[in-house]
C-alpha cells in the first residue's frame, strides 16, 4: 500500500508510563506488526504509595480520609466499603437516614464519574468538543456535590457509623434541578455519542470482550455488563438503602437490541446508567426517612468502640467502575491488622489483553480508556521500593535549585 505500511517486520512499542493517552501511569509493551497489535503486556504499579500499609498504622477515623484519597474519582465508594466492613466488625448499626444519604452521594458520584469518563473517551477519540460539552454539564453535578459535602472531589462525607453531613431541605431544590437537567440532557447526549458516524466508526466492534472472557477474567461493573454479564451489586447484593430501591442492572441490549461487548456497548451502558442514577437519587430524596445521620456523633467514643472490635469483615459496593471491595480484620487495636483494598479496576485490568489483541495503534487510547481504568486505585497496595539507585545527590539538587533561579532571572 505504501512504504509505511509495507514494512511488516514485528517491532516493540512501549507506551507509558506518562503518555497523553494514559491519564494515569501504566507501562504497556506492545508487540506490533505494522499498525496491528500482536501481543500486549503491561506493568501496573507506577503509582504505588503503600496506602494499605499506612492504614495499618492509623486509626479508623484517619483511614476514612485516607480511603477518600485512594482515588480521587471514586472517593465515596472506597470510604463506604471500608466503613461497611468496620461497621460489621464493630457491630455498629447505621441509621436509615445515613443509608439514604450515602446512596445519594454514591449515585451523584456515579453521575459525575460517568460523565467524566464519557468526556475522556471522546478526548481519546480526538473529539474535544464532546469533552468540553460533557465536562461543562458535569460542573452542575460537581456544584451539587460541593454543596452537599463541602468539597468538589474527596468528599469526606462518609464516616464510620453514618455520614458527617445531613442533606437539608434547602438543598433539595438544588439537587432536583440538577436531576432535571440531566434527565433532559440524556437523550441529546445519547444522540451525540451514539448516532455520531465518526464515533460509531471508531468504537463499533473495537476492543471486543466476549461474555466468557468477561466471566473468566473476573471483570466487574460496566465493563462486564457491556459484555452481557448481568452483574450489579445494587441488585444482587443490596447494601445501604439499595434494598429499598428497585435497581436493575443496565445491559447494552436494552438500547441497541444486541450485545457485542465492544467499546460502543461500554459507552451505552455508562450513559444509560447516568439516567438510572438520576432516578435513584430522585427516589431516595422522596423516601428519605427522618432521624439521626450517624450512630455515634462523638468521634472519641467511636474510636473507642473501634478499638475494642474483634473480627474480620468485607465491605462491598458497586463503584462507577464496578465492584469495590475492602477486607478488614481488626484485633482489638487502634488500627486494623489487615486491610486489603480491591478496587474495581484491579479486576478489570486483565481484560485489556483480549481486548487489545489484533487491534490497531489508533485504538489503544480508546480501548484502554474504555474500561475506565483507575490505576491509583489499583496501585495503592504494592510497594515500589528502591527500584533504581537514587540518581540525584544532594549536590545535584542544589545545582538544580541554583539553575532554577538562574533560568528565571536570565
Amino acid at each position: 500500500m505504501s512504504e509505511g505500511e509495507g514494512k511488516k517486520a514485528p517491532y516493540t512499542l512501549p507506551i507509558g508510563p506518562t503518555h497523553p493517552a494514559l491519564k494515569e501511569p501504566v507501562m504497556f509493551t506492545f508487540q506490533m506488526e505494522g499498525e496491528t497489535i500482536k501481543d500486549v503486556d503491561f506493568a501496573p504499579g507506577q503509582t504505588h504509595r503503600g496506602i494499605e500499609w499506612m492504614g495499618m498504622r492509623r486509626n479508623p477515623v484517619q483511614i476514612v480520609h485516607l480511603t477518600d484519597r485512594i482515588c480521587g474519582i471514586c472517593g465515596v465508594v472506597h470510604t463506604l466499603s471500608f466503613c461497611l466492613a468496620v461497621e460489621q466488625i464493630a457491630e455498629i448499626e447505621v441509621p436509615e437516614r445515613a443509608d439514604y444519604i450515602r446512596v445519594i452521594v454514591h449515585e451523584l458520584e456515579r453521575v459525575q464519574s460517568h460523565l467524566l469518563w464519557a468526556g475522556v473517551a471522546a478526548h481519546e477519540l480526538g473529539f474535544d468538543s464532546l469533552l468540553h460539552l460533557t465536562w461543562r454539564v458535569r460542573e452542575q453535578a460537581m456544584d451539587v456535590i460541593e454543596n452537599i459535602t463541602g468539597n468538589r472531589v474527596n468528599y469526606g462525607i462518609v464516616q464510620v457509623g453514618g455520614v458527617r453531613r445531613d442533606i437539608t431541605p434547602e438543598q433539595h431544590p438544588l439537587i432536583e434541578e440538577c436531576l432535571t437537567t440531566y434527565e433532559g440532557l440524556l437523550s441529546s447526549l445519547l444522540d451525540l455519542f451514539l448516532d455520531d458516524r465518526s464515533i460509531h466508526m471508531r468504537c463499533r466492534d473495537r476492543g471486543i470482550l466476549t461474555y466468557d472472557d468477561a466471566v473468566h477474567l473476573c471483570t466487574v461493573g460496566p465493563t462486564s455488563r457491556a459484555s452481557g454479564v448481568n452483574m450489579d451489586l445494587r441488585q444482587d447484593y443490596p447494601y445501604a438503602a439499595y434494598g429499598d430501591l428497585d435497581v436493575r442492572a443496565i445491559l447494552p441490549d436494552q438500547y441497541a437490541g444486541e450485545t457485542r461487548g465492544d467499546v460502543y456497548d461500554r459507552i451505552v451502558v455508562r450513559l444509560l446508567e447516568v439516567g438510572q442514577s438520576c432516578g435513584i437519587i430522585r427516589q431516595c430524596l422522596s423516601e428519605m426517612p427522618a432521624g439521626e445521620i450517624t450512630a455515634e456523633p462523638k468521634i472519641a467514643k467511636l474510636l473507642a468502640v473501634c478499638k475494642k472490635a474483634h473480627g474480620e469483615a468485607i465491605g462491598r459496593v458497586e463503584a462507577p467502575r464496578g465492584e469495590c471491595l475492602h477486607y478488614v480484620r481488626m484485633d482489638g487495636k487502634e488500627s486494623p491488622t489487615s486491610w486489603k483494598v480491591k478496587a474495581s479496576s484491579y479486576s478489570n485490568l486483565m481484560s485489556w489483553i483480549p481486548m487489545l489483541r489484533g487491534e490497531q495503534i489508533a485504538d489503544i487510547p480508546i480501548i484502554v480508556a474504555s474500561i475506565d481504568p483507575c490505576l491509583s486505585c489499583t496501585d495503592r497496595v504494592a510497594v515500589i521500593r528502591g527500584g533504581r539507585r537514587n540518581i540525584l545527590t544532594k549536590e545535584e539538587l542544589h545545582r538544580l535549585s541554583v539553575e532554577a533561579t538562574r533560568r528565571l532571572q536570565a
Partner: protein
Amino acid sequence: MIGSWELALIVLSAVIVTVYGIVVGLFLLGIDRKLAAHMQARVGPPIRQPFIDLRKLLIKENVVPDNAIAWIFNLAPVVALASSIVILLYLPIGSIYPPLGAYGDLILVMYLLTIPALCMVAGGFASGSPYASIGAQREMVTMIAYEFPLAIVVVAVAWRLAAAGIQDPFTLGSIAAHPIWSVAGPLGIVGGLLLLLVMAAVTPAELSRIPFDTQEAETELAGGLLVEYSGKNLAMFSLSQGVKTLVMAAIVVAIFIPWNISSLVLLPEGVALVADLLFFLGKVILVMFFSVSLVRVAMARFQINQVVSVFWIYLGLIGLVGLLLLMADAALPAAGVII
C-alpha cells in the same frame, strides 16, 4: 529570459507575499482557535495568540535530541516553511495576479504542496523517536491517500475549462478568471459542487487537522511527528502550518470562488484593491471555517486505514462522479443535446 527589472519586481513581491502570508496565516490560526473555542462554549484565546506563541517559541531553547539526525532535523522546518511560502507566490490574492503566475500552474502547486508534508516526514524520521516515526509513516500514507482525490479535482476543473476552449486551463490565473460555475452548465454545476466537497475534505487532511490528524494524534502519539521538536524549529512548523492554511484556503477560493468585488462593482483603483483584499480574506475565513474549524470540532479522529478508505473509496468516488458530470456537461451541448 527574465529581465533584471522583472526579477527585482518578483523579489520585491516575494518579500511582500512572505510577510503577508505569515501575518495572515497566523491571523487565520487565531481566528480558527477563537471560533473553535466559541463553538465549545469557551471564551478562547485572543486572536493574536498565535503571534504570541510564535514569539515565545522563538525565545525557547531549541533542543535537538541526541539520537536525531541533526541536519535533517533542523533543515526540515525551514524547507517546510519556505516551500509553503513559495506556493503562495503562485496563488492569486484578491485581484492581485500571482507574482510567479506566469512560471507555474496548478500541477506545480500540487507538487509543491507535497514538499511541506515531505519535510515533516523527513523531520519525523530524523527525530529518532518511535512516536515520530509512526507519525511520519502515517503522514506518508495520508499524503498518498489525499493526492488521488485532489488530482481528480484539479484535472476535472482544468479539463472542463479546456473543453470550453480556455487557454492555459491549468494556470491559476485563468482558472480564477473563468470560474467553473460560469463555464459549466447545470450538470457541470452539480459536478462542481461535488468537487468542492472533495476539496473541502482534502483541506483538513493537507493541514493535518481532525479528523485526518492521525500523524499528530496527541492522544495516540503524543504529538506524533512533532514530538521531539521545540523552540525555533517548532515555531517554523507552526508558521508553515499557518501559511499552509492560507494556501489551501486560497486554492479553494481560486478554483471555486474566484470572484472579486472590483469585477462586480466599479470602484477607484486603490479602493478596489483594498476591497478585493478584504473580500478575499473574508472568503478565506469562510472556507477555513467550514472545512477546517467546524469539521475539526465536530468529528472524532479517524484511524489511518479509515483515512485511506475515506479518501480512496468515498471521496475518490465522489470526485469521479463529479468528473463524469463535468465531462457529460461538456459533451452534451457539444453533441447538440439541450438540457
